[in-house]
Every structure is written in C-alpha cells, then in structure tokens.
C-alpha cells in the first residue's frame, strides 16, 4: 500500500508542476492489481455454490419422488400455497400468501392470464434452485437435496408435466420439458416506432 500511495503522491507532484491536468496524471498512480482480499478456498466456495442452471449444472447427488414430495408439501408448503397448490391470498401470511403453482395453461394470451410454475416457468431447474435456496419462506435453505427433488417431482407431477411415478435426480430433472419453454424472447425495446401519438 505504501509504495503505491507514494506513487500517487509522486505522480501528483510531477503533474502539478508540469501541467494543470493533474487528475489524469494521477491515473498512473493506480496499480494494475491490488493485494486486497484473500483467495477463496474450495470450502468457501462449496458452502455457497448451490445455484442450479437449466443444463443441470449445480444439481447435487440425491433423488426424490412424487409421494415423498406430497408429504413434505403438506407439512412445509400447503399453509401458504394451498392444499391443492392453488395459491392463497391472506394478509396474515408472509408475503400476503403464496402464489398458485399449477394451472393457467392456455391463459397467457388472454386478459385472464394466470402465471404459475405450470403455465409460465420455462425451466424445471429454476424450481429446484428456488426451493433449495429460498423456501420455505419461514426457514429458507433448510431443505435437503432429496427433499427438494421430491418437491419438484410432486409439483411437476400435479402440473401433469411429468409422470407421477418419475424419479427426479440430476439426470432426469434437466430433461423435463416445461410447457412454456419457448414462451420468452430477449428484450426488444425500445419499440421501432415513433412513440408520439
């Protein structure tokens, strides 16, 4: 630190004497790299590196089933999302209640659009990723991989997206075809039209 500090002062002094462009002269006092921070160890990374991508990268070992998921759902999820995954609006619940998880197919191009995991979410991996890290709301990050696999199997089974007898694991989950997989396109704004009326 001291050597680079001195560098700044030196550069400043030189530039002040030479030209009024002292500020740009100081740039040269900034080092290319800095000795701050510490190397992240593999243990540091593994503790937090839980995200899961659509191609399955990040999915842990383990597996789950519809039946196990049904039990976990009743215990951990139904209070907010409803016994039938229909969603609950209740100001006394966290976030005012949980959204519906199933239903809504065929509504997205109507004024009665219903956005759910079944009708809208393009990837099954997102469901795993979100449940693992953020659910249940009152105890986030508390579910084990097997439990999350089971919940994914239960929700997608209830959504009639996968067979209720299917096993969810790191191999099968990325292969799930979500109904709205092709329902998205990259930002195309601003509109190629004059926006005055």
């Amino acid at each position, binding site marked *: *630190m001291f050597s680079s500090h001195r560098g700044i002062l030196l550069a400043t002094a030189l530039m002040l004497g030479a030209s009024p462009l002292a500020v740009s002269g100081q740039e040269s006092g*900034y080092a*290319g*790299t*800095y000795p*701050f*921070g*510490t*190397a*992240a160890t593999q243990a*540091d*990374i593994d503790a*937090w*590196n839980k*995200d899961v*991508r*659509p*191609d399955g*990268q990040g999915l842990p070992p383990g597996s789950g089933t519809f039946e196990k998921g049904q039990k976990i759902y009743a215990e951990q999820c139904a209070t907010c999302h409803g016994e039938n995954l229909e969603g609950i609006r209740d*100001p006394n619940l*966290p*976030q*005012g209640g949980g959204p519906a998880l199933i239903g809504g197919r065929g509504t*997205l*191009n*109507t*004024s009665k*659009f219903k*956005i759910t*995991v079944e009708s*809208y*979410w*393009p*990837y099954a*991996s*997102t469901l795993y*990723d*979100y449940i693992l*890290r*953020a659910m249940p*709301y009152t105890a*986030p*990050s508390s579910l084990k991989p097997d439990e999350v696999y089971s919940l994914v199997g239960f929700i997608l089974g209830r959504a009639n997206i996968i067979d209720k007898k299917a096993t969810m694991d790191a191999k099968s989950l990325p292969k799930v075809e979500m109904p709205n997989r092709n*329902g*998205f*396109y*990259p*930002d*195309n*704004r*601003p*509109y190629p039209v*004059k*926006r*005055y*009326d």
Partner: protein
Amino acid sequence: MDRTHRSEILIGEPVAEGDLVRPPEEDCACKEGMFPKASRRQILRGGGLVTAAAATVLLAKRTLAADEDMAGSWTVPGQLAKSDYGTRSKFETAVRQATPAGTDALTPLQSLWGIITPSGLHFERHHNGVPAIDPAQHRLIIHGMVDRPMKYSVEDLKRFPSVSRIVFIECSGNSGGTARSATLKTAQAAHGLTSTSEWTGVRLSTLMSEVGVKDGAGWVLAEGADGAMLSRSVPIDKIMDDAFVAYAQNGEAIRPENGYPMRLILPGWEGNINVKWLRRLKLGDKPFMTREETGKYTDLITLTGKARQFSWVMEAKSLITFPSGDMRLPGKGFYEITGLAWSGRAPIERVEISTDGGKNWALASLQEPVLPKAHVRFRYPWHWDGSETIIESRATDQTGYVQPTKAFLTANEGVGPTYHYNGIQSWKISADGSVSNVLIA
C-alpha cells in the same frame, strides 16, 4: 414568460402593522398547506396513513403556535450541539408508506425537493425481509470462470480505488398499479418505488481484473445474503461497463433495507437486479435462469402470450410531484408545477408539460445537474384559472425515446403484468382545487 408570470404572482401575505406587535391569529384552513385535501375535522379524525401524517402536521403546528404565544424562539436559548446522529425537525412528518405484506415501502415523492432521496426515505423492496448482517462477518466471494477465486471483506473493498455516482433505482414494478386503474391516490402510493442516492463503492471492472475473467465467461450470477437469497444473472458487458459494488449511500454506510453492508449497483437497470446484501458473484458461460428472471420480472405481452426476458433497462419516465394526487390547491393563481424525470438509457433531454389534458405541451425547465441515470428535477410556471383541468408530464431522453401514453402501452403490450410501466400520469385538478389520480386510457 417569467416576467408576465411574475407580475401576477401573489404568494404570502403583506405584513400588516399589527402583525409586528401581536402574535398572529390561527391560520385559516387554506393556509394549512396545499397538501391535505380533507377538512380539518376529517384530518383530526384520522384514518389512513396520509391523513394521519397530515394530522400530525396540524397538531404540531398548533403546538408551535402555542409556544410562540408564550415566547418566540428568539427569546430563549436554543438547543446546544450534541454528539449524536441528527434528526429532522419534529414538525417534519413525511414517511415511507409500507404495503400491508411488508414487502415494500414507498418513497413520499410528493414531499421531497431536488433529486436526492434522503436515505431514510429511499424505497424498500425485499423478498424475505431485511437481513441483520454483521459487517465483520460479511464476505463477497467471486468465483466460477475466473483465474483466481477471491474473498473480500467490507474493509477489503474499501481499500480499492472507489467511485461515487448519483443513480436512480426504480423497482421494475413501479407505477404498475396505474396501468388500468386510478385507485392509488398519491404520487407516493402510485409511483413511490423509485429513489435517487449517491452510491460509493468499487467498480466491478476493477474486481474483475483482480480475479481474471476466463475466456467464454459471459454472465455473472449475483446473489444476496437475504432469506430469499435473491439471485440474478448479469451480462459481463454491463459488469465491465458501469457496474459497481457499493458500500455507501449518500455519504454514509448503506442502510440495512438497501443492502448493508454492500450491494450491486447497475445504473439504469431495474431495481431487482441491483442485488442487495451481495455475497457472491459467480461467472459462467450462460444465464443462470433464476426465478427472478423467468417466473418473475419478465414482461408477458398478453397480445401474443409471449414474454420479454432480460428487459433490464428502465425506460424514460416522468412524474409531476406537485401538484399531485390528494393535494388541494387553495385557489386560482400561480403554481410552480414540479416533478422528476429519469431514464435508464440516456440522460433526460426534455420534459414537456400539458395543463390541458394532453392537447398542448410546453417545455419545462430542467434543474442542473442533469445526470445520466439519475432523477432530474423539472419545473414549469403555471397560472391556474380555477377551472377543472388535467396536468401531465412527458419525458424524452437523449436517444429520442419519448415516454408513451397509457393507450399506446395497452395497444402494444396488452394487459399483462405491468413491469416497466411508464405510461404518462394524469392528475386532475377539480374546480375546488382538489387533485386526484385519473386514468386516461
């Protein structure tokens, strides 16, 4: 223009000889400020956050008047300096307005001046509450497709060369409640999920050169340390352009509800992706497709049933904050219309005002500095003739993009979820001076 206006301006009251020797009598109703629309009786009865706040103002005012009856402030010694964190005058009452579920709190835009939002009034939006984080325990890890995975404490970050920038942050869902309804009464309730602060931190380009970005790394997953572990994928181009990790807001540590001890700042982009309580940046070759960029924060266009994704930029928008919903003008005469304009794409080029429901438009003046990706304050002198009318503002940014009407947005986007909603806001001035939110579709 100014000259003719000036000749008609009559604000305040001439000082009468008697005023100088005896305490003023209690103010008339019209002088209680242009803000509360309700009568004194309604206000004192309370009910609703806005009226409750107004009642506080009134009560405070009476207390002041009573104090002054006994002795003017100039007749006694004042409060001495204390070693403390200062607070505003007890007569100032503007507060954030929390939604019932406690997931949002909106900025009282109609009560503020200039462009900086006081830190304590900066809007809040969170997905599992505000985490309590000990800065000594907090770490930022950068890993994935990098040469040297690194771990930084708050103190580590503070040693790097720093950058300060005044930036607006607007929730993607801001103003969505005005798309097809005029039930949200105030500027705060309808548009209060936008605020501007000066943020200070470390450029991501600096940190990226520290860790060494591997070839093919195109995306960065940003993850928060909150219960929602909120995560978004950010393209590397934005990271290298103007993104930074902030640890300070308006000259002091970031407030807990805004990401203490550190957050991502992506100037001009939707609030959600400015990840708060930032603890992890992971570089990868593809977007991670988190919940907040698939199931949420994507823009379903109901005309087609397809959704716009990765629509990060907040486009040009403006809002008249005075006069605005639920205020009451005391009578015809001069008013300075004022408000805010902003664009996530480019600096604001102009703001136009209509005082006849959109038939005619005139330029407002923009207060310097006009900063890119920050709120800009506009002003327009107006003589209200006392008849019913509608006032509106319309922003244009330096790309030539013009803030659209609500009718345009409905025609082009249908009636889906209203992320990125920037339709022109209309405020109706009734003949009695009351100001209300109206929908002109």
